[in-house]
């Protein structure tokens, strides 16, 4: 069980410690600067903060002394010649251009969206999911980063655009989450490493789906079988899915969970096949984050919102839902959470679970902690900045 929490917020990095039975925030770090994601490397405890500075560009900072001091890590940069196929912004004016010739844009880093740490079998290896849809890997603890070319040049993205124009159809759509960065591009927001073998990892892409490599990133394949995509003409299309977040049960890594735009999904066979386990009658369907229990493969938590069309709490009240039977049923818990005039939204990285503790932060600056597996909640802060990520350290 961790006694330390790391928050990425719109106004800096916040660290909470549990001492003397109480959670207490340290003075804010990176004050006044937006941070898109913050997490601790479980191997040796280095803290990482993904700076999301609107003016001066995305950057990485790390702390090797538990947050006492921070230093710049190398910037992630796209290699010269990296390009992507320009996407249509989904508005009526842009759609009038449908059928136009394929156009390309040079790739530059917009945002580091998530970090994924390899296991002890690969010391120093960290993956970074980014906008515009690149997966970067460092092999030396962040001294240098390299774009994963097999995924960047994947046939589902038009092939090797360094070599020339597209040789296949681009299946990767943009994510509205990129619009604030000036373009409609895909984003990698989940990087899930198999604890049995760090060469086996999953990346989840908005909007494409889940991809998997079993050879350390040399080859990649889609694994979206069983996914249902309610907003496309063909709901079972192999691509075009919008996973909002993907998590894995560390004790049984073949069990994955996915909160998707089109419901909650789970897989028992390492993403070989997904099954929708939403339960709309208890309002478990739409949302952004999902957390997997670290021991019990059948337990996961979500914080649902009303619907895609109305991204708000249900009836003005906040609740957390938990399944303990692999998604067959969901229990909802409201004790300690606001039940009226509540407009909180929980972003995809802003829910985490560790042991009996579950914690989430909201866009309206509220932070809630449960120490009984989500059944009752206590507010740790009401006036925090908008919270982008919550991770136990």
């Amino acid at each position, binding site marked *: 069980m961790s006694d330390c929490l790391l928050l990425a917020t719109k106004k800096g990095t916040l660290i909470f410690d549990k001492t003397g039975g109480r959670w207490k925030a340290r003075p804010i770090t990176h004050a006044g600067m937006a941070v898109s994601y913050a997490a601790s490397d479980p191997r040796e405890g280095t803290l990482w903060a993904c700076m999301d500075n609107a*003016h001066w560009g995305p950057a990485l900072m790390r702390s090797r002394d538990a947050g006492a001091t921070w230093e710049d890590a190398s910037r992630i940069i*796209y290699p010269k010649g990296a390009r992507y196929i320009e996407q249509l912004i989904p508005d009526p004016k842009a759609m009038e251009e449908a059928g136009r010739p394929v156009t390309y844009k040079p790739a*530059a880093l917009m945002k580091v969206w998530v970090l994924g740490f390899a296991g002890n079998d690969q010391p120093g290896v960290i993956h970074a999911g980014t906008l515009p849809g690149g997966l970067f890997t460092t092999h030396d603890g962040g001294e240098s980063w390299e774009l994963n070319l097999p995924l960047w040049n994947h046939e589902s993205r038009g092939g090797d655009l360094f070599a020339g124009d597209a040789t296949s159809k681009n299946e990767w759509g943009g994510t509205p989450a990129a619009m604030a960065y000036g373009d409609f591009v895909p984003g990698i927001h989940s990087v899930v490493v198999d604890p049995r073998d760090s060469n086996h990892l999953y990346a989840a892409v908005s909007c494409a789906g889940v991809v998997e490599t079993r050879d350390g990133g040399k080859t990649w394949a889609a694994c979206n079988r069983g996914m249902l995509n309610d907003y496309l003409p063909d709901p079972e299309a192999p691509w075009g899915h919008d996973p909002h977040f993907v998590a894995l049960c560390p004790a049984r890594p073949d069990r994955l969970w996915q909160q998707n735009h089109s419901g909650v999904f789970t897989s028992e066979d390492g993403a070989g096949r997904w099954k929708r386990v939403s339960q709309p009658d208890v309002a478990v369907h739409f949302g952004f984050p999902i957390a997997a229990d670290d021991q019990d493969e059948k337990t996961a938590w979500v914080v649902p919102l009303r619907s895609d069309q109305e991204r708000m709490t249900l009836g003005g009240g906040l609740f957390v839902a938990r399944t303990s039977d692999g998604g067959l049923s969901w229990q909802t818990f409201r004790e300690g959470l606001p039940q009226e005039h509540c407009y909180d939204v929980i972003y995809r990285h802003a829910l985490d679970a560790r042991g009996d503790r579950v914690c989430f932060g909201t866009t309206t600056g509220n932070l809630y902690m449960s120490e009984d597996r989500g059944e009752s909640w206590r507010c740790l802060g009401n006036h925090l900045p908008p919270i982008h990520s919550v991770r136990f350290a």
Partner: protein
Amino acid sequence: MPLVTFTRHLQRFFPTLKETEEVAGTTVRELLDELDRRYPGFAAYVVDETGRLRRHVNVFVREEPICDRESLADRVAPGDKVHVLQALSGG
């Protein structure tokens, strides 16, 4: 040499950066390259990895915004005043 004045915000990242620096160069890009030599990593704050001026940053030469945001080829002359500014944005 041109005189380059910076938004104070940049001193947060480069504490020894002076408010105004004399910098040798004949284009804005050359000024930036020289500043990057003096303050390693400085250029990445102003331009992205393609060399494009970042979206919410602007550079003025002789009180006019530069024309070439893609490669910063705008010419500068000795004594020119150059400003590196950030957009007033956020909330």
